[in-house]
């Protein structure tokens, strides 16, 4: 045997990749010990209270005169020299610092010494380990389970923060003087799990995947909790003591050899312990009719005794049970339920207060957390691609809402293949992921990507489910919305008109959303009356579902205001009033930087500028810019857009040199690589042309309009469009002023054929008026 093993060491990598080399490298980092009265941070060491493979724990006192406090200080080997791991450590500690739960010993402070030793200051718990506490006090079973439930709740809480303890064992669970079980050593375990997978665990308390060196996740903690339950319940009992059948089933389920056979979450385990205490069926025992009947009778003794098992009672009891059995989740739905559980904790716990309507500096932390969590999703749900897909999708949603488009795209590019390979293409989740990815592409100035994504997706769904698949309505709605985002409003109206008959009868959020977007496209192509009707219908549906003065209903008010503004006169005043209401409401509910407030402000700025009231527009434009500046980089496409409107208002106010500076700054940003769309390019040169005309620099105006024309060809291709007409009109004026009357007239004739309707292009009425003089 030893010969074979010796020779095996000669194999490539056998020695360097092996345990001996690992251990040798670890001993190169000896733990320097501390002596009483040594200072670490603001803490003075008093005495050693324990040591293990991970470091030494000292009792220490806060010694900065701030306040008296005894803490447990964990002193770790120096092994954080490189900055990348230092960064992981810093971030983990930040998350841990926010991990406040009555069942978790609070992390108070932490840092690293000059020679690289890491230390943590933890809440000091004076108490016995859980198993010893139970044994010494000879606690009855029920009290032991109550303590265990406190522990499971603490673990559940930490899982909800994406932290895996990975070293749950009796010595790490102390019972404080007030009877609260406290889970210790959190920071250390988390740190360990990220830095070095093969790091310590305790004999008898290592999950199978820890022993095999596989990645560990929630299920590893569940396994350790199972062992804790067994150890705690049997502590201090005679050797022959056995667990009651239900508890044995709970332990067996938690400690199943395969992670997927265990409880999917600490919450499920908690629920089973609660059921056990309440004499309700525990999930671990499965769907056993007689077992449930027995429990039912135990739980409701009256139903048996009072009526002496009359026929009626019997039917009631059996009926209830049969009903219960039918609502039990099928085994096949297990993974789905995991996904639901995981998603619930993400949405409820991990990402609290991340309403996508909220964008602002206060959410920086959340987006950092979400970004930091992304790599963990891959790792922790490696075995569950479907769950990983769903979680990635949720994070993408949040990151998208926080304008972290690149990270959202990253999460979605992971989610899409994960979902495709598990739930398939023809599933709402997969479709959602594609749609959000399309949105993300739009927001990063890559409008074509969205189309490349959605159109093939549609074909795939048609191939799988036919033209009548309900999923197609979602995709079609997005393709239509995409047309609007590409400024192709006629196509948008066309596509929505085709989609509408399929969903008209419905009164749900989706339909209301479609109607709202449809109304936007109609508004843009001047079919304001129809737009108003659809927006009012959308509002009506939202009010039915969500009530008045809700986020949802307010969003629809915004769509109502848009066509009203365009209809002029009394209607315009009504529109401004509604926008003001929307603004007040969203400001008071979500703050001045919320999505909706921003939209309302930006719309007011645009509208007033276009209506020839640039002076009134200016405060709104400036407000819009200052809000965007808080969450967006200076060269973000949305900032460029806001600056374009600003430049236009300045031009129309006659502040020509200021406008000139504004446009120059946009040009500089684009030259320096700011991401921008063809629409931004087009608008920039079109607006610049307007400015040059106002400056009476006609040759420059002509040049600007000709450049705008190049970009317009990209935006509108061969289609006729008011936006294209405006450029030709501007060019005509520039030519006319330079004496090129014939060319000017040609341009005007061309513009006339390009115009969408009878009315002059919106926002450019003054330009059209000036052009009339040419004829």
């Amino acid at each position, binding site marked *: 045997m030893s010969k074979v093993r010796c*020779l095996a060491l000669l194999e490539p*990598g056998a020695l*360097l*990749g092996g*345990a001996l*080399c690992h251990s040798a490298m670890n001993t190169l980092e000896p733990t320097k010990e501390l002596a009483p009265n040594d200072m670490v941070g603001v803490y003075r060491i008093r005495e050693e209270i324990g040591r293990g493979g991970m470091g030494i724990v000292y009792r220490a006192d806060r010694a900065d005169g701030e306040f008296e406090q005894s803490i447990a200080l964990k002193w770790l080997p120096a092994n954080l020299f490189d900055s990348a791991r230092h960064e992981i450590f810093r971030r983990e500690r930040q998350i841990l610092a926010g991990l406040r739960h009555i069942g978790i010993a609070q992390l108070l402070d932490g840092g690293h010494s000059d020679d690289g030793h890491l230390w943590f200051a933890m809440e000091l718990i004076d108490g016995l380990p859980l198993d010893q506490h139970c044994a010494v006090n000879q606690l009855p079973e029920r009290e032991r389970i109550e303590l265990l439930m406190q522990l499971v709740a603490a673990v559940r809480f930490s899982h909800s923060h994406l932290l895996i303890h990975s070293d749950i064992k009796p010595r790490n669970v102390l019972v404080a003087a007030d009877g609260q079980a406290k889970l210790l050593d959190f920071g250390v375990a988390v740190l360990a799990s990220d830095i070095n997978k093969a790091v310590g665990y305790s004999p008898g308390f290592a999950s199978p995947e820890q022993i095999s060196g596989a990645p560990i996740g929630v299920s590893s903690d569940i396994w350790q909790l199972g062992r804790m339950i067994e150890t705690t319940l049997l502590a201090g009992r005679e050797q022959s003591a056995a667990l009651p059948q239900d508890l044995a089933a709970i332990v067996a389920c938690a400690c199943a050899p395969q992670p997927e056979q265990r409880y999917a979450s600490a919450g499920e385990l908690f629920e089973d312990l609660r059921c056990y205490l309440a004499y309700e069926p525990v999930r671990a025992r499965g769907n056993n009719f007689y077992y449930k009947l027995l429990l039912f009778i135990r739980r409701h003794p009256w139903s048996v005794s009072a009526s002496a098992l009359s026929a009626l009672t019997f039917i009631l009891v059996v009926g209830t049970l049969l009903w219960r059995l039918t609502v039990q989740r099928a085994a096949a739905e297990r993974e789905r339920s995991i996904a639901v559980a995981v998603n619930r904790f993400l949405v409820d716990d991990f990402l609290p207060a991340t309403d996508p309507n909220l964008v602002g500096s206060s959410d920086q932390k959340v987006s950092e957390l979400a970004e930091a969590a992304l790599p963990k999703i891959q790792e922790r749900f490696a075995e569950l691609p479907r769950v990983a897909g769903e979680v990635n999708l949720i994070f993408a949603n949040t990151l998208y809402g926080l304008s972290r488009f690149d990270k959202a795209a990253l999460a979605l590019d992971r989610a899409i293949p994960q979902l495709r390979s598990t739930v398939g293409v023809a599933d709402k989740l997969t479709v959602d992921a594609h749609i959000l990815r399309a949105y993300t592409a739009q927001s990063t100035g890559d409008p074509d990507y969205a189309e490349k994504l959605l159109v093939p997706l549609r074909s795939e769904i048609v191939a799988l489910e036919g033209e009548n698949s309900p999923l197609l309505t979602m995709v079609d709605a997005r393709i239509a919305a995409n047309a609007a985002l590409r400024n192709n409003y006629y196509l948008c109206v066309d596509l929505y008109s085709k989609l509408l008959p399929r969903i008209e009868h419905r009164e749900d959020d989706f339909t209301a959303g479609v109607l709202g977007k449809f109304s936007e496209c109609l508004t843009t192509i001047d079919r304001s009356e129809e737009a108003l009707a659809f927006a009012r219908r959308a509002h009506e549906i939202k009010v039915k579902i969500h009530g008045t003065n809700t986020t949802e209903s307010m969003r629809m008010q915004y769509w109502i205001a848009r066509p009203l503004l365009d209809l002029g006169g009394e209607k315009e005043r009504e529109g401004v009033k509604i926008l003001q209401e929307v603004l007040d409401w969203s400001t008071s509910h979500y703050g001045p930087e919320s999505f909706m407030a921003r939209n309302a402000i930006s719309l007011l700025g645009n509208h007033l500028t276009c209506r020839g009231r640039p002076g009134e527009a200016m405060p709104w434009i400036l407000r819009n810019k200052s809000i965007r500046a808080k969450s967006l980089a200076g060269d973000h496409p949305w900032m460029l857009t806001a600056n374009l409107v600003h430049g236009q208002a300045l031009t129309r106010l006659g502040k020509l040199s200021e406008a000139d500076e504004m446009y120059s700054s946009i040009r500089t940003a684009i030259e320096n690589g700011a991401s921008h769309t063809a629409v931004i390019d087009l608008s920039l040169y079109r607006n610049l042309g307007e400015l040059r005309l106002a400056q009476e620099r006609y040759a420059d105006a002509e040049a600007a309009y000709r450049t705008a024309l190049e970009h317009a060809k990209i935006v509108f291709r061969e289609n006729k469009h008011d936006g294209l007409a405006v450029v030709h009109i501007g060019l005509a004026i520039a030519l006319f002023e330079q004496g090129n009357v014939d060319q000017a007239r040609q341009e005007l004739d061309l513009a006339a054929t390009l115009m969408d309707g009878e009315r002059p292009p919106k926002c450019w009425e003054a330009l059209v008026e000036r052009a009339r003089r040419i004829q």
Partner: protein
Amino acid sequence: MSGITGLLAQSQQGDASAWGAIIERLYGDMRRLAHNARKLNINEAPDTTALVHECYLRMHQHGASGIQSRAHFFNVAASAMRQLLINHARDRVARKRGGGNVEYATLSECDNAADQQATDLLELDDIMRSALAGDERLIRVVELKVFAGLTDTEIAEAFDMSVRTAQRLWQEARDKLRAALTDQADTDQEPARLRQ
């Protein structure tokens, strides 16, 4: 830097402070080398070469006068690594014999594997010393291959020889070690056979 080769020679003669000085110099890079190695799957050969190269470049940039060439550095690093692992294996074996109850301590399951490898490595080292004695080139090849994780091509480069020669030397060293181990195993089994 007074010459890492000199330090290595001193440490081989039992000078503990020389050993410390070597480790100090190679420390960071060796740690990374090992860290990289330990991340690998068992079936995968570690890509330590890149690290060794980088390590050499770094030392070179810092004006490590003791290192004459890249080949020289490979040899030094391999020797240092060998010595480090042997020393550690000795410590482990000694500690294990010393015994001690570590109930509930956070112990790595890897410890058992490491103890096993320690025993095996010490045995292999003994065999190397006796079977390859007198043939410095064979010892160097084994060190470069096993303790520094170099490929045949890199060994050829380090020795300024052809790849085929490097492969032949490695084959020769391995055959000698295998033969020596078989002899030893036969001797080990003698008593058992006699009893039959």
